[in-house]
């Protein structure tokens, strides 16, 4: 008996997604047990007016605890195994040339076999450092955040599936398995965004997210199928790390579209998938609405999993996009140019929208879109390592920011409850409210930053961690992770655009990203200022706090851990010739670059340090921070006062930004409503019921008419003839009968007339005969 040796690093990656997936099944099948309680019970948290007298299912206490334990155990196991794999990878010299991989035959059809397997190379290793760590933090945070939700067990089962799918995607060695993880994540996002599915806004957001990404996914699927039909394999190793295959793909002309190589067309299809998943323009619309889910889900989607997956897939397939060109010497392929432009535009475009948001989570949502634009743009100009670096640092500080904002919202709800209790002298037993209660909070919006202010006093830990995350996002020079990764992207863009004078995409990327970085720093300071600085603008904000006990601990511990990473993660990628810092952190070589480089066949080169992009980047960050400080910290917003930005930008511009340039409305008018109209009026009513059924009914009617006609003809002609003969004889009989009157005189008369007639005829005829004879 040959046991599979799971201590072998080639085999061990199989186990990484197993923990969370197993947790998903165990929670779903075993520990998700609910009890029925009256809807009015405070335990339900809802006291929903419509549910009076109704029993609602609430996860029972045993299920609550067990689900948390199982979910946490699953992700912890994944984390430990990941760390083990990562440790072995780091200990392997020249890791990258040598990788951990194993596969099994999945689809064996006699002649050929489709293999499914796992692959750990430097890129995977880096993801395996980030994903399980971020997921674990999110899980711990969720314990507190979801503590009172009636469907808490379902939450843990779904988020385990989410983590499992992401880990599957990360360790996959082929595009198909990656796509499976990709789609399952799409499903999880659908179910988690719509977790409070009673709320209309929640289920609409869920469908929007799923549909938007689905459109992109299907295009991506087409690319995968096309790739497979050309190469006969989907394995990363056999495609993107095989120069012969890449050269062949680059030399094959694409179907239908002239002037494009097959590699480019496949690349574009795959990029569309990422544009959907990583919420790039024009498919970015789903991400801000995805805020409808519980906050840990937002953290999961925005940082650890979903959107990172999009960028990861591009990084993973990077050689394919670059096939037939040389991005490090300024020769870009159409997919790379597309990425550069989409990324640069999105980075700037989303940043402008983030500036004009009041919802604390929405600001972060737009900032995610913008930051992913940074990564896209970096990939577009071939800055492969920089994009991966930013992906990792962004994941840490964005997970932190989301969970911190979740704490803020939680605290605000707490404050709202406090105010509510005191105002009505009601004695509600529930401490926190979630889900259903959101809908009934009516006029007060605990997520609106205008209702906040001064939260630093009541929520100090949240404030400090939020500040660290925010500054990292803003790219505060030298001390934050965000600075180092953003700097790397800017340096690459500048190097290509201005040092080597490739201009074109490189220059556009550089300029757009510097502007976006300025805006990023500005809106981050605006958010921090509105939320934490100054005095509380509402009674609720004054009483906002996380309370005490386990809830507060589980909700702050992850923040602290992530805050450490939001600072420290940057120091693994300091360029070695960066003054002072380079000597401290990268004495020999840039560790991140050095480790990740061998993922590609030909490790990307590094270029010498240049002050200009660093200065631009620092100026952007500091300028934005200074402007934000000037407008929102120096003189904090007072209660009832409008945002100073409204007047500066003019209300019309502000409204346009606030309403996301009305793109959602535009899509509604251009795509959704016409599609609905077409479906209802044209396809269903006119063509289907009208024309097609009409023709059928017409045929039916024609046959009925023919039948009727035949029936009539039958009566007239055939029956007419048959009956007519009989009737004629009958009629003759009637007529003839009149001769027989029974009167002898008449008979004699008739006989006499007849005799005369006969005699006459005889005479005449014989006479004629004689005359003829004579």
């Amino acid at each position, binding site marked *: 008996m040959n046991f599979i040796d799971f201590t072998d690093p080639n085999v061990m990656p199989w186990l990484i997604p197993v923990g969370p997936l197993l947790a998903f099944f165990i929670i779903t099948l075993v520990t998700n047990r609910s009890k029925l309680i009256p809807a009015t019970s405070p335990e339900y948290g809802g006291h929903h007016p419509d549910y009076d007298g109704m029993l609602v299912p609430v996860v029972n206490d045993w299920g609550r605890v067990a689900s948390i334990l199982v979910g946490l155990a699953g992700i912890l196991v994944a984390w430990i195994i990941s760390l083990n794999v990562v440790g072995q990878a780091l200990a392997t010299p020249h890791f990258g040339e040598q990788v951990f991989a194993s596969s099994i035959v999945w689809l064996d059809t006699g002649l050929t076999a489709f293999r499914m397997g796992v692959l750990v190379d430097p890129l995977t290793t880096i993801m395996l450092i980030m994903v399980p760590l971020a997921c674990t933090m999110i899980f711990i945070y969720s314990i507190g955040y979801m503590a009172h939700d009636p469907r808490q067990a379902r939450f843990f089962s779904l988020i385990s599936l989410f983590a499992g799918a992401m880990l599957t995607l990360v360790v996959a060695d082929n595009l198909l398995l990656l796509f499976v993880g990709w789609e399952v994540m799409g499903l999880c996002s659908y179910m988690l965004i719509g977790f409070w599915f009673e709320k209309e806004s929640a289920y609409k957001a869920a469908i929007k997210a799923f549909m938007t990404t689905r459109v992109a996914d299907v295009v991506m699927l087409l690319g995968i199928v*096309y790739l497979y039909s050309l190469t006969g394999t989907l394995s990363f190793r056999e495609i993107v790390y095989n120069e012969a295959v890449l050269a062949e793909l680059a030399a094959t002309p694409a179907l239908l579209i002239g002037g494009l190589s097959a590699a480019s067309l496949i690349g574009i299809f795959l990029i569309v998938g990422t544009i959907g998943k990583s919420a790039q323009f024009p498919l970015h619309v789903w991400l801000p609405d995805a805020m409808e889910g519980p906050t840990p889900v937002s953290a999961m989607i925005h940082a650890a999993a979903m959107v990172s997956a999009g960028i990861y897939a591009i990084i993973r397939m990077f050689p394919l996009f670059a096939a037939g060109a040389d991005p490090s010497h300024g020769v870009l392929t159409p997919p790379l140019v597309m990425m550069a432009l989409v990324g640069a535009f999105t980075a700037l475009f989303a940043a402008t929208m983030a500036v004009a948001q009041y919802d604390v989570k929405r600001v972060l949502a737009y900032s995610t879109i913008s930051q992913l634009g940074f990564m896209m743009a970096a990939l577009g100009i071939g800055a492969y390592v920089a994009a991966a670096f930013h992906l990792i640092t962004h994941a840490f500080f964005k997970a932190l920011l989301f969970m911190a904002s979740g704490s803020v919202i939680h605290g605000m709800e707490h404050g709202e409850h406090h105010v509510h209790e005191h105002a009505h002298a009601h004695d509600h037993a529930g401490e926190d409210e979630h889900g259903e209660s959101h809908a009934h909070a009516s006029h007060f919006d605990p997520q609106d930053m205008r209702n906040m202010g001064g939260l630093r006093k009541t929520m100090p830990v949240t404030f400090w961690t939020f500040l660290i995350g925010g500054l990292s996002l803003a790219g505060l020079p030298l001390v934050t992770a965000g600075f180092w990764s953003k700097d790397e992207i800017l340096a690459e863009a500048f190097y290509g655009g201005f040092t080597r004078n490739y201009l074109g995409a490189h220059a556009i990327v550089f300029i757009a990203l510097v502007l976006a970085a300025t805006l990023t720093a500005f809106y981050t300071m605006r958010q921090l200022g509105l939320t934490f600085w100054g005095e509380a603008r509402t009674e609720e904000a004054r009483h906002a706090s996380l309370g005490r006990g386990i809830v507060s601990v589980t909700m702050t511990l992850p923040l602290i851990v992530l805050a450490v990473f939001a600072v420290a993660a940057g120091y693994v990628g300091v360029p070695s010739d960066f003054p002072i810092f380079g000597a401290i952190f990268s004495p020999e070589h840039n560790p991140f670059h050095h480790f990740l480089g061998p993922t590609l066949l030909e490790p990307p080169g590094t270029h010498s340090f240049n002050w200009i992009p660093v200065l631009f980047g620092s100026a952007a960050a500091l300028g934005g921070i200074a402007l934000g400080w000037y407008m929102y910290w120096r003189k904090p917003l007072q209660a009832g006062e409008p945002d100073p930005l409204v007047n500066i930008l003019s209300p019309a511009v502000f409204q346009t930004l606030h309403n996301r340039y009305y793109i959602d409305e535009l899509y509604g008018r251009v795509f959704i409503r016409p599609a609905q109209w077409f479906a209802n009026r044209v396809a269903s*009513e006119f063509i289907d019921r009208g024309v097609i059924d009409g023709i059928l009914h017409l045929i039916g009617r024609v046959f009925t008419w023919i039948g009727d006609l035949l029936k009539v003809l039958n009566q007239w002609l055939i029956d007419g003839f048959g009956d007519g003969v009989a009737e004629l004889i009958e009629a003759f009989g009637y007529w003839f009968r009149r001769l027989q009157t029974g009167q002898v005189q008449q008979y004699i008369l008739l006989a006499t007339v007849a005799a005369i007639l006969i005699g006459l005829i005889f005479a005449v005829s014989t006479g004629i005969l004689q005359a003829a004879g004579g």
Partner: protein
Amino acid sequence: MEATGLSLVTVVLFLPLIGFAIMLFMNERTQAGAIRWTALGFSVLTFLLSLGLWALYNPDDPGLQLVQRINWLPDYGISYYVGVDGLSLLLVILTTFIMPVAILASFRSHIFEERGREKLYYLFMMLLEWAMIGVFVVQDLVIFYVFWEVTLVPMYFLIGIWGAEQRIYAAVKFFLYTMAGSILMLLAILYVGINAGTFALPEIIAAIQTGALSFPFDGLFSTQGLLFLGFLIAFAIKVPIWPLHSWLPDAHVQAPTAGSIILAGVLLKMGTYGIVRFCLPLFPEASVAWAPTIATLGVIGIIYGAWVSYAQRDMKKLVAYSSVSHLGFVVVGIFALNAAGIEGGILQMVNHGVSTGGLFLIVGMLYERRHTKAMEAFGGVWKALPLFGAVSLVIVLSSMGLPGLNSFVGEFTILMGTLGSNILGFVFALFATLGVILAAVYMLYFYQKVYMGELDKEEIRNLEPLHWSEKAALVPVLIAIFLIGLQPAPFFRSMDASVDALVRHVDESVPEVVVGNLQMPE
């Protein structure tokens, strides 16, 4: 391969008829329960034995297996000739799989309270199973035709007696429409059989391969072209290929739940199966020549069906039109005329049977509880019946082609076949993928309307929990969804050899058009 003893295929074929005979002597009033259980028992037994077919089947042999042949009218070359190969094996199992599900779905149906005649109902079910298995295993053209037409009768009565309000219209439309199509097929069958001197399909194909028999082909409407059309129209109506689909929504909507499940699950597949079994090998040149046209209709059906689905406010109609869309996929796959396309097509027939059968099952359960199929009448069902909501979601996702579940495997393979096909190619794949997007639109719309949202309707709040028989009906559907989705290899393996042989046959018969022989996933 001529076996003399009793073939398992014959046993599987006639088992439902034995059940029929036994139930005939039962008393409706005193033994209603026994009748139900007999029907279920026989259908389950048939399913288990049909699994035996799979066990005995040798996947490396492309030819007919487990053959039994008894001369019936030797003067006319008509014989009782049954067997299975890679093209039919899975469909036989699909049939025997769907029947117990459909019977379980009828256990607690209100239709008997309204219309009675429970015994007659189960008798028709048994008759239907017999006829459907017959269609898939019979190798003689004339007997095939007989079985083909016999399936109409029980379904006609199932719709006409136990259907909804407009059942008579729907039943007549169903019967006349499909019957009208079959007449042309009968003519074509007679022409083929008389020219070949036998009605045994394998012998006719062998004759075509050796060149002993050929149907002249020099254009779309030459002799072979017309014969092809004669068969194809009958099959196209059954599939249904757009624009011959308009009987389907009516029949589906009016049929009782079990009727819809069987219609979607099995009856439609008789059409696509017929194309693979008869049209392609008998008329290879015409198949190649007609392929772009028919695949175009298939693509139109994919998009059209999805779009019309989206417009529906009636759950059953929505699912019914989605069948037009899904079957369009199968048609495109078949007419890619390569191994990947056809194998994907056959697997997708099975997938559609499972997923859409499942959809009709859950819609039927909702209908049982609310007595309406309008989506407005629902909302918040997930909250009222959490488990049912979760199971429904799996079925909905399966129908949408989520990776990891069954339909994805079929869709992926079909897309691959289409893209690799020398006849169809990229544009067809592009439009077919549009259908995948639209599938998500209408399915999520359905799920949102019915399952999500607030529980603001009194009736939904008091929704009756699932009966054990309903749970029992859902379980096999779920198992099949996950099994095919996660482990499709054995399914492909079972048809691989036969499909390869078919593709080679078509390829060799049409030397000037080299059909891309794209292999299955490597």
